[in-house]
């Protein structure tokens, strides 16, 4: 898979519109980056260039800010975003296992990889999302799934993939057997 296939096509008018709405002064850097990322899921190079060219924010400040805050990413994302909470409560209750099981079913073998090879899902670890009593938790496209075991995470993801016509690269079709095994 080439990263190129995931690159977003940036609408230049939209970016200049954000600059006029949000502001062009240095203090607007964070909200501008948030607007871009909300739209494209990451910070495409072209959008960054447009901000630098059309505002009082220079490249050093913009990239400095973009690389400082955990929210921002410069790499493209898959069509759907999974966020696995790694707050304290989730950590002590096995958030790691959610990652293991999701990466397994998404066929992600390389540790540095965070997006499935067919660009369907990106798995990101996030700091506490504040639902600690429902730990461990993951968010799929913003929808929260509480009190997960590794197998639950896979089950929810399989359903999500079915509903959105996505293929899970690491998923082998042996569900029926599993179901009968579980009841025995």
């Amino acid at each position, binding site marked *: 898979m080439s990263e190129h296939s995931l690159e977003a096509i940036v609408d230049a008018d939209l970016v200049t519109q954000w600059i006029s709405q949000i502001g062009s002064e240095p203090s607007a850097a964070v909200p501008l980056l948030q607007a871009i990322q909300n739209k494209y899921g990451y910070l495409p190079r072209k959008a960054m260039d447009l901000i630098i060219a059309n505002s009082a924010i220079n490249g050093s400040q913009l990239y400095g800010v973009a690389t400082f805050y*955990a929210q921002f990413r410069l790499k493209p994302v898959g069509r759907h975003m999974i966020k696995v909470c790694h707050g304290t409560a989730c950590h002590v209750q096995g958030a790691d296992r959610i990652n293991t099981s999701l990466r397994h079913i998404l066929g992600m073998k390389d540790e540095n990889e965070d997006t499935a090879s067919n660009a369907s899902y990106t798995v990101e670890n996030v700091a*506490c999302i504040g639902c600690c009593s429902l730990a461990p938790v993951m968010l799929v496209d913003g929808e929260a799934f509480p009190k997960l075991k590794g197998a639950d995470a896979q089950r929810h993801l399989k359903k999500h993939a079915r509903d959105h016509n996505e293929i899970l690269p690491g998923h082998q079709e042996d569900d029926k057997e599993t179901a009968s095994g*579980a009841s025995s």
Partner: protein
Amino acid sequence: MNNGQMIITIGEGTCGIAAGAKEVAKLLEQRFPNATFKTVGCLGMCHREVMVEIQNEDGKTFLYGNVDKKNLPKIVHFHRGEGSPPEKLLIRSSDAPDTDSGRYLTGQTRIALRNVGQLNPTSMEQFQARGGYQAIEKILRSGITPEQVIEEVKASGLRGRGGAGFPTAVKWGFARNAPGEIKYLVCNGDEGDPGAFMDRSLLEGDPHSVLEGMLIAAYAIGASRGYAYIRAEYPLAVEYFGLAIQQARQAGYLGERILGTDFSFDLKIKEGAGAFVCGEETALLASIEGQRGMPRIRPPFPAIKGVFGKPTIINNVETLSNIPWIINNGGQTYANIGTHDSKGTKVFALAGAIARGGLVEVPMGTTIRHVLEVIGGGSASGRPLKAVQLGGPSGGCIPEHLFDTPIEYHAINATGAIMGSGGMVVTDSKSCMVDLARYFLEFTQLESCGKCTFCRIGTLRMKEILTKICAGEAVLADIDTLEELASQIGPASLCGLGQTAPNPVLTTLKYFRHEYLAHVTEKRCPGGICKGLITHTIQNETCTGCSLCKRQCPVEAISGTIKKPDTWVIDQKVCINCGMCVEVCNPDAILVV
């Protein structure tokens, strides 16, 4: 209050929605089309979400927890006049108000959380019906001076609830006396401590109280502009607080010449972008200015020179939500609650290995044991509780034998932990304190802004050593190095992040040194957590041969023939000890040693 109509109230905070509140609400609307439906913020009983309160036509009320679409018919059945209320779901009712699970709520003293879960956070009318905006009205209409407001807060003894515990009135006094035409008030809602969600619940459950607190604070220090800095990870809080600002502006509580007086104040929301260090005042200010969130040397303190160089006061969400109550009820009334050292109440986010987790507000001086056992209902698993982690990555672990420590600044500090912002994560015997310390160091190392060398490099070295210990690759001298680093990073760091980063290590070394030693000398993890020191084996006598474990195993380490328990084995050379098999094994046949 009740005119023969059924009233159904559903908690729709982030926790409730995550647990499926919207679906439950929809189903109830179908079943009871004539009932009145109310939406409220999080009641704080997060362990019982989804929560529904039903008031019958006869005025009797029933509070249910753990409601989902499967058990909903039982509730519907009862409220159609058949049978008795489903006992497992019922938390309390007007017939039986004092139940064990109801003690979660009755054991609390709610001041900061007075409205959370009691009103619809998007309704300003409901807020006003509960006495909202009366404090600011009282101040502005009866000409109470800013100095008098500061005096009242001083009498309350309120200390900043964000973690540092600095007296609020003293801070306000600095900014009041600072020269300058334009001053700023900032609400710090960048609740970054993993395991803490007090501010989230307040902002999304009772946004107007925080806003009224901001108005009073702004009046006291003479600020005309403000910011509410809220984590972007809290979308509902951002939405509801934004709505509260609009409503208050329309009602004339924000803007120019508020209520016809000379006092003007307005504010904007700034969404945080995921940097723990921005909880530190000067880093937060840099972030508002659009810069990397890096702290700077103080003095000058923000009260003298803050955002855009103007005098600025930064108050935490919980601190601010206490303010209107203090003005309405008097500082002395607040000071009557708590201890000599610590006044009022404190909100905690109780989570982890506890039976009843959620938001808990207790008077200062309450013991940790009371919170864990009476309110929290003790251990969730039945295993004995081991420790409680207070104050997140900046705080420390308090072991079980110190659970009788009263919750007050002085006594908590004496244990080596800190009060912190209110995160309270409980662990039981199946936990590893070295792994927990490693988790926090990994967190602080990632979040270190990089300005101070000791914090930037020192936390990395500490994390490396802790990782080695957890992997069973450390020697005794590593523990000495760890202690040496821990003692140096604090004093050599500029801000709270670095100053407190070693706390989780220092406290676990103090109280759980034997666990460190077991990892180093015996190559054993007593809690059965550290992957490098445990093995998973199938006990064939309990195995049923169902093959569920094989299907879950991400590395194909498990093999055997279906329904032949004797044939099942885990290949130790392949196994990564992830624990997925243990989670799915119904007969509990996998042994972790």
